[in-house]
């Protein structure tokens, strides 16, 4: 068997379930990918047989079990629309595992806080699984109650879960970053423990996380998105500005130290 860290594979689609309004969970078979993927890494999926749409679509590895892996995705345009129509038995052209995932700082920190905004839950479930012995705290931010994803799955792993919704229909009313502020400042067990943050979500939220982490002097790893053309570090199209110059989201990222990024 080839030993390459990244590879192209035809993966068989096992399940493509709707899990919320516009959200699907897809299970794909590839023992190689399941074995090699690390939390925070992603795959590039060809969503059609033909040339339209042209580019692959990137998705974080959501979970791994046995020789299968899952992706969790939201329909936002043509590519994800096509993906949602795929049926079990189909075979999907996939490249992965790609990028640098989260660094698990299990020895240095006692408390782990995972912050997900919207679709940001996707790579964090896989991370929570790897951190489950440390019983992480998971904050899930969503627009409304109906948009909360994977609450049950995080709980099943033994995580404590706190919710925030923009409209106040469930949990803390407001932004997930405000919830995080509350927790870090309040009289919670999280207050005085050394802790580490891991976050995925929209850029404004991640920027906010970087500021919060800085003011509390805690390390934070954030997973960024960018439009990818190649996904394998060749085109230099996906760069983000950092203190060490431009870095590729698809190669040096998608996970970065929050304080590295120039927002």
């Amino acid at each position, binding site marked *: 068997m080839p030993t*390459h*860290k*990244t*590879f*192209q594979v035809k993966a068989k689609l096992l399940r493509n379930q709707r899990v919320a309004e516009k959200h699907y969970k897809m299970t794909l078979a590839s023992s190689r990918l399941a074995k090699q993927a690390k939390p925070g890494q992603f795959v590039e999926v*060809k969503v059609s047989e033909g*040339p*339209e*749409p*042209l*580019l*692959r679509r990137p998705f974080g590895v959501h979970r791994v079990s046995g020789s299968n892996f899952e992706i969790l995705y939201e329909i936002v345009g043509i590519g994800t629309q096509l993906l949602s129509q795929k049926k079990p038995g189909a075979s999907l*052209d996939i*490249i992965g595992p790609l990028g640098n995932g989260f660094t698990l700082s299990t020895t240095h920190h006692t408390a782990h806080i995972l912050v997900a905004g919207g679709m940001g839950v996707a790579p964090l479930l896989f991370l929570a699984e790897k951190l489950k012995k440390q019983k992480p705290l998971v904050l899930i931010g969503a627009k409304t109650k109906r948009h909360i994803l994977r609450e049950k799955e995080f709980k099943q792993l033994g995580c404590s879960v706190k919710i925030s919704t923009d409209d106040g229909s469930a949990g803390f009313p407001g932004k997930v970053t405000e919830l995080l502020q509350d927790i870090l400042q309040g009289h919670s067990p999280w207050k005085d423990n050394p802790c580490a943050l891991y976050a995925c979500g929209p850029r404004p939220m991640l920027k906010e996380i970087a500021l919060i982490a800085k003011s509390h002097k805690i390390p934070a790893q954030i997973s960024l998105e*960018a*439009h*990818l*053309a*190649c*996904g*394998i*570090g*060749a*085109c*230099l*199209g*996906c*760069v*983000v*500005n950092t203190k060490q*110059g*431009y870095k590729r989201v698809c190669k040096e990222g998608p996970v970065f130290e929050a304080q590295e990024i120039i927002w």
Partner: protein
Amino acid sequence: MNPNLEVKIGRLKFKNPVTVASGTFGYAEEFKDFINLKKLGAIFTKTITLKPRLGNPPPRTCETPAGMLNSIGLENPGIEGFIKEKLPFLKKIGVPIIVSIASEAGADEFMVLARRLDKIKEVAAIELNISCPNIKEKKTKRLISQDADATYDLVKSVRKVTKKMLITKLSPHVPDITEIACAAEKAGSDAVSLINTFPALSIDIETHRPQLATVTGGLSGPAIRPIAVRMVWEVYQKVKIPIIGIGGIIDASSALEFFLAGATAISIGMANFINPAASTEILEGVKKYLIKNKIKDIRMLTGALKT
């Protein structure tokens, strides 16, 4: 029987006519996990400049109908960085390495670059990128390849300082590409490659902002293919030097169009992004076509268009 696939670009032999285009294949190492690099006819590196370049601010790419825009802005480690960090891997592959070079400062800097590369045995040829829409000559604010005289002067200057094969890469953003190709030929270019990307704009209607930070960028992909094929055909009728056809090749049939129009070799561009194994798959497809149609030599296809 296996058809002949070997082609010649000047004195240079490619064991097959399928190459990879500058800027779409990084420095080859990015693709080593996906294909056997030895199978390629030649590799064109990302364009190199004298000094390291940071490139343009992001966002630098966006998908468009049957194509994409890019405004990378020639991010590269500079010639010395290239020689130190990238060339050692390229050297070991064992296929002709063609180093693409560019400058905003004009002929003098091109000559410095060419002299430096002239000394390196493993550099098979130099491609003069005078057609990147993301960098314009500082003095004139235009592309060298938009002017026949400027093209002639530039190629002539570089020709004087190197014995390496010279390939001149042309822009489609001109009224008559044959004039530019003829100027390059007259000045001593051993081949021309065409086309580079076409300047274009894509707008986000929600924010009223351009999709790229630089507002415009270069269009590539199947969207530009028929333009590229037409240009190859026009140039084929006017020059004797070989043509390397580029633009929207994503499969064997699109590659074959270029040979029929007059290309001696082809380069795979953004198709490498869609499928990292596109180049070698296209090579296999071309081979199959030749066998199926009992064509003994790829060279018999070049310019075989019936009009």
